[in-house]
C-alpha cells in the first residue's frame, strides 16, 4: 500500500483553505472607493464581460449606498458575489483601470464588489422577483452559471423555467470547479439559493442525453443548452488507470463535496498541465497537506497559459515547476502510482505556436504517489453529436448567434462553456446566459 501523507488537522486544513483574498473592512472599502476616478466610458466597464457599471457601484460605496451598489452589480451580473471572488480581475476590470498608469496600482474593484455584495447578502435583500406569468415555458439543461443566469432573467420576464442538472448540487463549476481557497462552497451555494428564490423548477441528479432534446423542444417553447464541458482530456500514455491517478476537476470538486480531512492526498504529487486548472489543483494539493507538489509542463514558463497571478500564488505556496517535461508513462508499483516518467523537450519556434520536440535520451522520473491530470476539458461530444442538425465548430463546440445565443436548431439556444467562443471564466458564462435569456425572451414576446 502506498504511503499516504500525514494528514493535517481539520483546523490546519481550514486555515489552509481560508480565502486568499479576505473581505475589505468598511474603512478599507471607503478608502479604496475614494481612489476611483469615476472615468467616463470607463475601461473597466468595457473590460468586464458582463459590463457592470463599476464607477457607479464604487461611487455608491463612497456615498454609503451599499444596497444601491449591490443592485448595480447584480443588475449586470447575478453572480456578482462569486465573480468578485473568483474573477481574474488582474486581466479584466483591474487590468483596464487607468490607475495602473497613474499610480501603477489599480483600484481593487473585485474586493469592492465583494464588499457591496456581502452587505446586500447580510441585509438579506431580495432585489428581483418573478415577472407576471407569460404562460411560456423554457427548459434549461445544466445548472451552472450560464444556465442559472438564463433562468433568472427568464423568470424576471415571467417565463416558466425547468432546469435539468446532472450533478447533485447546482452552480456547476462555480460551486465545485473553483478551488475552495478562492471561494468557499457555502458562498457559492448561497448565491445559487438566491437565484432559486425566483421560483425555478430545478431537478438535480437529472442527467439528460442529447437524444432527449427533441422531446424537450416539443414540450417547451424554448430550450437553453448550458451543459458545459466534460472530462479532462486523457494523456494517452501508459499507467493512466493506476490507483493514485486523478482528474483535476474531480480532485478540486472534492474539496467542496467531501470533508477536507477525507480528501485523498499523496505525499508527493505531480500535476500535469500548464493552465489555470493545473495551478488550482497544485494549490489545492499543497493545502491538503502534500509534502511536495510539482507541476510538469511540456512547454516553458513563458508559454504557460495560466495567469500570472495564479502562477505567483502557486510559487508562493511552494509549488515546484518542472518545465519542458513531457509525460511518457506513469510508473506503478502493485497497481499504485510510484512515479512519472518524463522526457525532456525543447521548443522549436516562438511563442505558443512553437513545436514541442522531444530531446533524445533525456528520460527522467519524478517520484510521486499521486498524479493529477489537468490537460483541459473535452467537449461533451456524445451529447452534442446526438443532436441532429446542430452546427458545431471544428473543436466540437456549439455555434451560436453571438447576439441572441440561438443555435442552428429553431428554439434551441446555448451558452456557457459548451458554446463556441464562450471564454473560460464564470463571468463569461454569465454573459452568455444573459444573452441567451434575452434572445429567448425576444423570440417569445
Amino acid at each position, binding site marked *: 500500500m502506498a504511503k499516504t501523507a500525514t494528514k493535517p488537522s481539520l483546523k490546519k486544513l481550514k486555515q489552509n483553505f481560508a480565502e486568499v483574498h479576505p473581505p475589505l473592512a468598511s474603512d478599507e472599502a471607503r478608502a479604496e472607493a475614494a481612489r476611483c476616478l*469615476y472615468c467616463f466610458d*470607463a*475601461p473597466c466597464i468595457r473590460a468586464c464581460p458582463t459590463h457592470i457599471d463599476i464607477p457607479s457601484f464604487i461611487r455608491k460605496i463612497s456615498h454609503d449606498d451599499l444596497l444601491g451598489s449591490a443592485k448595480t452589480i447584480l443588475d449586470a451580473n447575478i453572480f456578482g458575489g462569486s465573480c468578485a471572488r473568483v474573477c*481574474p480581475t488582474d486581466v479584466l476590470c483591474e487590468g483596464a483601470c*487607468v490607475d495602473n498608469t497613474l499610480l501603477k496600482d489599480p483600484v481593487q474593484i473585485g474586493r469592492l464588489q465583494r464588499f457591496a455584495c456581502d452587505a446586500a447578502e447580510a441585509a438579506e435583500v431580495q432585489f428581483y422577483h418573478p415577472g407576471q406569468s407569460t404562460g411560456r415555458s423554457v427548459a434549461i439543461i445544466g445548472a451552472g452559471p450560464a444556465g442559472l443566469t438564463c433562468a433568472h432573467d427568464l423568470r424576471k420576464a415571467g417565463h416558466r423555467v425547468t432546469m435539468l442538472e446532472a450533478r447533485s448540487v447546482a452552480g456547476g463549476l462555480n460551486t465545485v470547479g473553483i478551488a475552495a481557497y478562492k471561494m468557499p462552497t457555502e458562498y457559492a451555494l448561497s448565491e445559487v439559493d438566491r437565484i432559486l428564490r425566483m421560483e425555478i423548477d430545478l431537478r438535480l441528479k437529472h442527467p439528460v442525453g442529447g437524444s432527449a432534446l427533441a422531446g424537450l423542444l416539443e414540450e417547451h417553447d424554448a430550450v437553453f443548452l448550458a451543459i458545459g464541458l466534460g472530462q479532462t482530456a486523457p494523456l494517452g500514455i501508459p499507467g493512466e488507470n493506476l490507483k493514485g491517478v486523478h482528474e483535476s476537476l474531480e480532485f478540486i470538486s472534492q474539496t467542496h463535496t467531501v470533508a477536507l480531512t477525507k480528501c485523498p492526498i499523496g505525499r508527493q504529487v505531480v500535476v500535469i498541465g500548464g493552465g489555470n486548472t493545473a495551478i488550482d489543483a497544485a494549490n489545492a494539493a499543497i493545502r491538503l497537506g502534500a509534502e511536495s507538489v510539482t507541476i510538469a509542463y511540456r512547454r516553458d514558463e513563458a508559454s*504557460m497559459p495560466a495567469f500570472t497571478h495564479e502562477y505567483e500564488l502557486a510559487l508562493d505556496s511552494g509549488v515546484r515547476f518542472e518545465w519542458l517535461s513531457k509525460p511518457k508513462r506513469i510508473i506503478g508499483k502493485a497497481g499504485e502510482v510510484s512515479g512519472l516518467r518524463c522526457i525532456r523537450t525543447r521548443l522549436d519556434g516562438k511563442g*505558443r505556436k512553437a513545436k514541442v520536440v522531444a530531446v533524445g535520451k533525456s528520460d527522467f522520473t519524478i517520484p510521486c504517489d499521486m498524479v493529477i491530470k489537468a490537460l483541459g476539458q473535452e467537449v461533451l461530444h456524445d451529447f452534442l453529436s446526438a443532436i441532429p442538425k446542430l452546427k458545431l465548430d471544428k473543436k466540437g463546440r456549439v455555434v451560436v448567434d453571438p447576439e441572441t445565443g440561438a443555435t442552428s436548431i429553431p428554439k434551441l439556444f446555448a451558452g456557457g462553456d459548451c458554446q463556441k467562443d464562450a471564454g473560460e471564466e464564470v463571468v463569461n458564462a454569465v454573459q452568455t446566459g444573459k444573452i441567451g435569456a434575452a434572445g429567448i425572451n425576444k423570440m417569445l414576446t
Partner: protein
Amino acid sequence: MNDRSQHDAQAIDLSIEFCGVKAPNPFWLASAPPTNSEYQIRRAFEAGWGGAVWKTINQEPIVNVSSRYGAIDYDGRKIVGLNNIELITDRTLEVNLREIANVKRDFPGHALFVSLMVESKREVWHDIVKQTEDAGADGLELNFGCPHGMSERGMGAAVGQVPEYTQMIVEWVKEVARTPVIVKLTPNITDVRATGRAAKQGGADAISLINTINSVMGVDLDTLCPKPEVGGLGSHGGYCGPAVKPIALHMVSQIASDPEIRLPISGIGGIQTWQDATEHMLLGAGSVQVCTAVMHYGFRIVEEMISGMSNWMRKQGYHSPAEFVGASTDRIRTWNELDLNHKVVAEIDEDKCINCGLCYIACEDGCHQSINIEQVPEKEFLKAHKDGVDRTFLSGTQRYVHGAGEGYVNRFTINQETCVGCNMCSLICPVADCITMIQIDNGKAPMNYQQYQEGLAAGTISKIEPPQHA
C-alpha cells in the same frame, strides 16, 4: 544676481513687525480652542508659532454645550470644513490674566494678543482693556465676529454686523488702550468694507479677518438631528477650515485694496499650509492666524509652514515677508478691467493622458463641448504611444492594455477653435501637467470691457460674436 549656490544658502528671516509688535514669524494662532490656556500656548510657542491671540476673554466665564463641533468630509478626505458652537472662554478672568502674564514673561519675543468680548458698555470695555494690558498683553483683538451664541446676547457678530456699533466700541477701547487694537471682522455681512471702514473711523490699529461663517453642518440621516447635535437640537455655528479659504482671500483683498482703510491686516481663514499662508500675505495680510489645521493636526504643523515659506522665499529671492506682503493685492480688479482679448485654450499631452475621460464629460455636459473623443484601436494606440510598453502587461499568454476595453482606447483632443479657455478640464485632470492652458496670440491689442463699450459707441470696433458651436 546671486548664483545658485549663494541663493540656496541665502538666510531667510521670517520675523515680522505687525503694528509695532515684533514676532519671530508671521504664523500666529487664532483666538480659538488651541489658545485657551497657558499650557497650550506654551506648547505652541515651543513648537515654533510666532504669535497667538488668546481665546476671547470676558469678565465672567461662559458655559458651553456638548457636543460642539461638526465637520464635512469629502470623498474620503476628513474635515474639509469644520464648524463649532463653542463660545468664548469658559475660565475665569483671574485665571486667564494670570496665565497671560506667565506666558508673556517667558516668551517676551513672541506676539501675544488677547481677544476681548464684553457687553456693550463703555466702562466694562474700559475695565477689561486695562486689566488685559496690565497682564502684559502685546495688543488686543476685539471679537466682533463670533456668529453664534454670543451674538444672540448682543456681542460678537451682533456688533460686527452694524458699522455704527463697531465704530462706537472701537472708540471706547481706544480711549484707554495703550497697545495696538486689532478689530476682528465677521464675514457674515454683505460688504466687509463697511465694518472695516467703521473700525478705521473708530481708530483701530489693524484688522483681522475672517471670523467664522454662519453654517449648519448637516443633518444626521438616521436621527434627522442637525450636526453638531445637542440633545436632539442644533444651532447655527461658525464655519472654518480649508473650504473657507477662498472667501477669506476675497475679503482680505477687499480690505487691503480699500483706499479708505489702509490698515495692517492679520489674515484668517482656511490656512492649513505654507501656500495658504503665503497667498493670504500676497493679498495683503502682514500676519496670518491658524486654528482648524492645528485642531486637526496639532501645533507641530508650523514646522512645515516655516520650511515651505522659507524655501519659496529663497526661490523667489525674498529676504523678509515684508517684501511680499500685498504684492498681489493690486492684481485683483473689477471684472470690467479684465482684457477681453486675452485668449487661452486647453492642450492635452497625449503621452501623459491616462484615458479616464473626465475632461471630456466635464466639457461636454458642463462646459463648452470642445473636447473630441475618438476610439483608437488598441494596437494602433500602442504603436503610436511612446510609453506603450508601460501600458501593457502580460498574464499567461494574453496581453492586456491599461485604459483599453472592447479593443479600443479613447483618445481625447481639444478642439481649440471652439475652446473658450474656461480651465475646467485642466482643473479636473488627475494627471499633473497633462492638460495645460496655453496662451494664443490672436494679434489683438488688450481691450477691457470699458474700452469695448467705448469702441462700440465710437464705431471703431465691431461687436464680439457669440460662440457658434453650441
